């Protein structure tokens, strides 16, 4: 149902007025996740070519303040601080408080390993809108096999204890890989233990420079089928309602993304740089970039193209950024989403068959 908030947000997005921004503070991370898509060499990633050398200096603190001022002027309300691990940024707290002073609703994406009691106290004082924390397994060995850091899972459990004791809002996120595929219920139970919901994501993101090693970790069809059949997991199995004129997503319309070196992108996934905050005002780039205009066009066209592209369109998401990165074509449906749509449609058919024929006095 449309709420006053969703109507307002929808109106802003259709008018290409951004309300969400993502600020990647750093690619530095204390973990070495095997599926990490950042353009940084982590261990045990199957690369076919060396990474290009970073050619941009990270934004200085004063430059980040300038970015925050501009995003506020543009009307951005929700600001996500991410990385890498944002807590490894030497000025993380200064940036977070500067965002609060500018009245952003701050979201922080973290692996939580650096969240000690003292850090949890600082988060309590900061009052972010939420923390979104990655979960890599329900057991030490599972998590460590993915993030390649000894003790990471125990650090997560301690952090969740500190955060929940302070009533800090946390959403847990779990990418469904073959490493965690047998532990999904236990991961949900882990969230329940601390009072935090877990959101499962069956789609892996290829690396920023187009390498496909994350796909080596894909879960099997059967696991995804069970995932969508399972009760109580935050996946959802209802068909999408797409209305004429809908946008596919908020890319380049409601969302803006800025990299550690100040490059502006249409979103987190659409990796083309459309400008740099050091070159000209963000609003000017936002209003004049032909790439952003193309991204908006893709977003307007996609609902119809998805209908044409798959029989299971009512279950099919589309990430134009991921398609562009993987195929060089933002309009081409990406295999993982098509696969998930096929599985979801099958599960919906199974559930309908189990429920039996619908009987009623009206058709």
């Amino acid at each position, binding site marked *: 149902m449309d709420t*006053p*908030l969703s109507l*307002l*947000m929808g*109106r*802003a997005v259709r*008018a290409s*007025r951004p*309300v969400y921004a993502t600020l990647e503070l750093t690619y530095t991370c204390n973990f070495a996740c095997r599926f990490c898509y950042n353009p940084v060499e982590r261990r045990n990633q199957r690369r076919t070519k060396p990474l290009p050398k970073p050619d941009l200096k990270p934004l200085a603190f004063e430059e980040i303040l300038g970015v925050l001022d501009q995003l*506020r002027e543009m*009307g*951005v*309300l929700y600001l996500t601080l991410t990385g890498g691990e944002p807590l490894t940024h030497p000025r993380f707290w200064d940036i977070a408080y500067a965002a*609060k*002073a500018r*009245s*952003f*609703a*701050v979201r922080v994406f973290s692996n939580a390993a650096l969240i000690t009691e003292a850090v949890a106290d600082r988060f309590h004082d900061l*009052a*972010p*809108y*939420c923390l979104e924390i990655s979960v890599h397994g329900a057991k030490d060995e599972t998590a460590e096999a993915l993030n390649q850091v000894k003790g990471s899972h125990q650090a997560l459990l301690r952090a969740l204890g500190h955060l929940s004791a302070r*009533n800090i*809002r946390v959403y847990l996120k779990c990418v469904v890989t073959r490493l965690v595929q047998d532990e999904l219920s236990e991961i949900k139970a882990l969230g329940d233990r601390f009072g935090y919901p877990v959101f499962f994501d069956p789609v892996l993101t290829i690396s920023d420079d187009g390498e496909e090693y994350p796909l080596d970790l894909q879960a099997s069809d059967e696991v995804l089928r069970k995932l969508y059949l399972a009760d109580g997991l935050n996946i959802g199995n209802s068909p999408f309602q797409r209305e004429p004129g809908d946008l596919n997503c908020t890319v380049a319309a409601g969302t803006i993304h800025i990299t550690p070196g100040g490059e502006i992108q249409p979103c987190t996934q659409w990796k083309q740089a459309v400008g740099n905050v050091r070159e000209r005002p963000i609003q000017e780039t936002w209003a004049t970039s032909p790439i952003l205009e193309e991204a908006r066009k893709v977003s307007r066209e996609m609902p119809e193209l998805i209908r044409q592209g798959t029989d299971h369109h009512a279950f099919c998401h589309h990430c134009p950024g991921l398609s562009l990165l993987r195929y060089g074509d933002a309009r081409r449906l990406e295999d993982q989403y098509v696969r998930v749509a096929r599985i979801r449609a099958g599960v919906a058919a199974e559930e309908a068959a189990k429920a039996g024929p619908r009987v009623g006095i009206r058709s």
Partner: protein
Amino acid sequence: MYEDGRYKRNPDVSWRVIEGQAVLVHNREGEIEVLNEVGTYLWEHADEPLEQLVGNISRDYGVAPEEARRDALEFYESMVASGALVAAET
């Protein structure tokens, strides 16, 4: 009741005016409020003297000053009750 006006916004409440309406995010509670046009005006000018705001609303919306005053006070009371505003020290 704080009839002289002048309120301070709670720094734990994030906000923006989106498409002409203030959206308030109560970060600690996770609640979101959307204000109407007059509420947005009162929110944006919460640190200004009440009588000045009442005069402006009365003029711009063609309502009697007493009615504008009553509505503004009611609005501010509700904002204080929700924790979005606190009465500023004078």
